């Protein structure tokens, strides 16, 4: 897992950091602070960041893909699955 230090289009980006140098080809736009997969991850596979498990893949994730709510679930927090994947906006509270 790598974290984007700036907004990026589908393009090759340089990966820095311990044990992960090289280039990864982004398959979609990924924004600053968001994550990109450095390896293919099978459905149910663990997502590792900071050396710790931060969630599990809810579907297969290919190297170069944006890693977020649409393909990762928390072991604890179920409500986050209802949020808008791009904006994080709440969708499960009624306003009318």
């Amino acid at each position, binding site marked *: 897992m790598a*974290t*984007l*230090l700036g907004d990026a289009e589908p393009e090759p980006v340089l990966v820095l950091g311990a044990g992960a140098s090289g280039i990864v080809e982004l398959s979609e736009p990924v924004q600053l602070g968001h994550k990109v997969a450095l390896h293919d991850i099978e459905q149910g596979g663990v997502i590792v960041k900071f050396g*710790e498990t931060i969630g599990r893949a809810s579907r297969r994730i290919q190297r170069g893909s944006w890693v977020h709510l649409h393909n990762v679930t*928390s*072991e*604890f927090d179920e*409500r986050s699955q209802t949020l808008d994947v791009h904006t*994080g906006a709440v969708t499960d509270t009624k306003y009318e």
Partner: protein
Amino acid sequence: MKGDAPMTEHLTASNPAARTWTGYLRSDGRKGIRNLILVIYTVECAQHVAHAIAAGEDEVQVLGFPGCYDNQYAVRLMLALGRHPNVGGVLAVGLGCEYTRPDKIADVVSRSERPAHWFYIQSVGGTQKSIEKGKQLVREMRERSQRDARRVEMSLADLTVGAECGGSDGTSGLAGNPVVGAFFDRLVDAGGSAIFEETVEMVGLRRVLLERGVDERARAQLAEAYDKVLGYCKEVRQYSVSPGNFAGGLTTIEEKSMGAFAKGGSRPIQGVIKVAVPPPRPGLWIMHTVPDPHFMGFGYTNPNDTEGIMDLVSAGCQTVLFVTGRGSVIGSVIAPLIKVTGNTQTYERMIDDMDFNAGTVLTGETSLDDAADQLCQLVMRVAAGEPSKPEALGHREYFVMYKHQEAPPLTLGCRA
């Protein structure tokens, strides 16, 4: 803030522990970096009058509790804040109907050798008379507090600094929080106290957390706090992660937790303290703010950032570091808030609000150690009287809520 407390540089920047500035010695032995008069209102009905008393008055700030029914947690919080090292006097203002007792607040504060007064708006005769009386009282107290202040030399060893994050994004765990953590290491090494809370943002980190405990007792406290947090979050089905966090790239509470925990630095955790309890000895501490079980079940934990800041300030933090990625425009009563961001875009976009850019660590312009040294210098400048940006902008946010928390008797100044 008065800029009359220049920092004296005895040694070089390489030895921040040797730097000193002038603070305010309180009767319990703690030292303040400000000398404020606090107006405390005891029910929402007195809120307007309390703010009108403080309006236009230098060094006078306001906090209060909105409820008519009282609450032990809220009372403990207000008593701790009224005797905070940065506070030199208190005016408690009530309407006259409510459960919370302004006379008791003033009595407890006056026993700490601070000037303290109280009145009921109903007894004084309404809005205008209460504002006039209140202004007269706070002016007298300010004059007395400034005249009688015991000015003393202080250093990093005398500081208790809190850290909180809000509006986190993917940079917070990579830059903002790690720089604060590296500063905390420096503070602890210099003999000071560092407190971070947000135990709800330790979900998923049980093993990582327990490894940091200094001894068996601390590890047992951390385990108990962790298990309580997880049980609480499962019960309320709400984890401490916001829409803005997700928009900023954080995907799970576990990921946010790892980033938030980075502000704890690398020194051993001495133990777990509760709200309104000063750390019993210097070092790194975790504050547990999660409500305990109660028949009414009230009390969201961390309903907003200001609530957590109030809790940290109640432990005697003279200043609090606030790490944001998305951007935040809050400040704090009593303790100046220092804004740190790991997001250079946010720093530049919200430059008027941001005190420190840790984003240079991500671009490689600055090393983590250099950034922590620079942050340390900034903290000492603010401690010496330089206003932080939120402070200069006039931010004085506060939040006192209903909550139930089992806690030891309220005793202050027990740094044995």
